[in-house]
């Protein structure tokens, strides 16, 4: 029998998710539309009740009520109370079909990890955390995901992850934190590929500030002449100096630079900005100000 494309699609979906094959006898257009609605209702009712992915998608996006979680999770054999971590994986383009396949094999079903496709370029991995696992282990897993997908699928990916959480009801909050980590990570640490929610540092604070407040802060630090950006050489020198806890000897060693050259460069920064980076408070102000400058520049560029 010839059906309208919508009805044909609905019947195929029904067969795909339930295994049921159905014929529709409709004499009028009205009857056909009614049949279509009923089949669609059947599909969504079935998915709501039996489809794990559908349930987890709802859980992650926060569209399932907490009483529903308690009822549906056991039916789908998903443990309600278990320490888990949520990885949010984003590919540069559309998700290659090899990516979920590789992830399925990296996190086999018996490990009680769940892969939940979200959009055409993002996927969530819900993974149980062992009691002995530390955040360092999770960072390593995230790097392993990135490197394995780079190597096997030749796919460019970034991974953000939430803190550990104990119940399924916290899934939505965990997703939001991983999503925020991805966003803030891209803004402030875009050269990296792994973004732990717990290590966003000042970046998270700055991201949540209104632009006007950021501009006001820069005026306060630099006066009317806000530098667009420091030259690259100075920038990398200062970054390394801050990373080394303002230690001149260590920084000059790492940069293979004479200590006097380093001191000269720091003095140039002081001349330019009025901030003596050898002083902790000035160094802290400088660090925050340079992050704010980068943030505003990225916002302007986007």
């Amino acid at each position, binding site marked *: 029998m010839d059906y309208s494309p919508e009805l044909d699609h609905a019947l195929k979906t029904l067969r795909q998710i339930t295994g049921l094959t159905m014929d529709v006898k409709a004499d009028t257009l009205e009857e056909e539309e009614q049949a279509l609605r009923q089949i669609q209702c059947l599909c969504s009712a079935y998915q709501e009740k039996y489809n794990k992915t559908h349930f987890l998608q709802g859980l992650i996006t926060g569209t399932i009520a907490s009483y529903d979680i308690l009822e549906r999770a056991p039916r789908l054999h998903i443990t309600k109370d278990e320490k888990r971590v949520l990885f949010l994986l984003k590919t540069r383009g559309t998700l290659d079909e090899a990516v979920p396949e590789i992830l399925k094999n*990296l996190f086999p079903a018996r490990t009680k990890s769940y892969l939940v496709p979200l959009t055409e370029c993002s996927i969530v991995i819900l993974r149980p955390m062992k009691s002995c696992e530390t955040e360092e282990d999770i960072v390593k897993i995230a790097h392993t995901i990135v490197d*394995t997908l780079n190597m096997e699928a030749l796919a*460019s990916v970034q991974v953000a992850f939430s803190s550990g959480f104990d119940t399924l009801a916290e899934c939505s909050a965990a997703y939001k934190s991983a999503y925020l980590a991805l966003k803030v990570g891209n803004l402030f*640490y875009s050269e990296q590929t792994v973004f732990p929610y717990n290590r966003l540092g000042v970046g998270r604070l700055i991201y949540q500030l209104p632009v006007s407040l950021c501009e006001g802060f820069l005026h306060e630090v630099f006066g009317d002449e806000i530098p667009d950006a420091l030259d690259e050489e100075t920038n990398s020198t200062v970054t390394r100096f801050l990373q080394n806890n303002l230690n001149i000897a260590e920084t000059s060693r790492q940069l293979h630079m004479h200590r006097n050259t380093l001191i000269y460069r720091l003095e140039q920064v002081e001349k330019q900005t009025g901030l003596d980076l050898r002083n902790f408070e000035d160094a802290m102000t400088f660090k925050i100000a340079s992050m704010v400058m980068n943030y505003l520049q990225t916002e302007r560029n986007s």
Partner: protein
Amino acid sequence: MASLSLKGIEKVYPNGFHAVKDFNLDIDDKEFIIFVGPSGCGKSTTLRMIAGLEDISGGVLEIDGKKMNDVEPKDRDIAMVFQNYALYPHMTVYDNMAFGLKLRKVPKDEIDKKVREAARILDLEKLLDRKPKALSGGQRQRVAMGRAIVRNPKVFLMDEPLSNLDAKLRVQMRIEISKLHENLGATIIYVTHDQTEAMTLGTRIVVMKDGVVQQVDTPQNLYNTPCNLFVAGFIGSPQMNFMDAVVKVSGTDVTLTVGQHVLKVPASKKQALINGGYDGKTVVLGIRPEDVHDSQAFISNSPDSVIKSKIKVYELLGAEVFLYFDVEGTQMTARVNPRTTLRTGDDAVFALDMEKIHIFDKETELTITN
């Protein structure tokens, strides 16, 4: 296999961070090229741009003469081995190696041929039925290599593949990779921050700092004729000794004064100082630890290059001894024969092999004499 050309490659991230600047390099077919430099110098970023995992902000990347800037990674005919590889825990070694090809729907008999050939090259034939948990660290690493080899790519890209292995295994795997390069005749680009790895594996080494290529040369040339202070300090362990020295030209004689020590510059080095107008200027004098001698015979033959100091630390490493001492406030290291009688606290006399010294411009940090 393939040749690569990187012309004026740049990488600028959206947050303004300029990770790679004007990177130019031609890589010949079958070369083993090493990118080396301190962390954050842009070596991995460059590799990832070659792989297509990062967008190229500027410049042109060519593989076998074809522009690759906008070609998808999977269409570049490359294979990668990275630091944090994972083997599929429930699959055998065979399946781990075959998995990538299965995903690409390569016919079964072809997969079998490629996997067995890779296993033969990597000496994994007897382990094909084992699961990853039954393998040692080195064997796992070889499986990861096998997954790259079965692709039969034009170029292998390796990013610190040995970093997660312990020191002993790293040395073993270094030899394996070297053999692999010979057996496959492959073009390999290898990223490391470990200069020993760089010196032992590479046919040519690219030294990078702050996103800029400092020098591209053979390991021997990098060691003997570094182009600037950074390369001189980065290549070699223990690193080259550096001291500030004042140049004095008197007629045809040129001397370097380091505090109270006056060192006579040999004929082979002095012309560059005279021609460069360095008379009266401060330069940086560099000398490798093995060119600082404590033997009486050498000291007697080199009266114009003698320095005196007190030994701060004596370090016996079996086949050699490192002596640490200060000269005019700068710490120096001498690598000497273990039969030396010098010990911590002793007053010592050393002579520098002035034919082996390096002199750098203090401002530009570029070499004057190489």
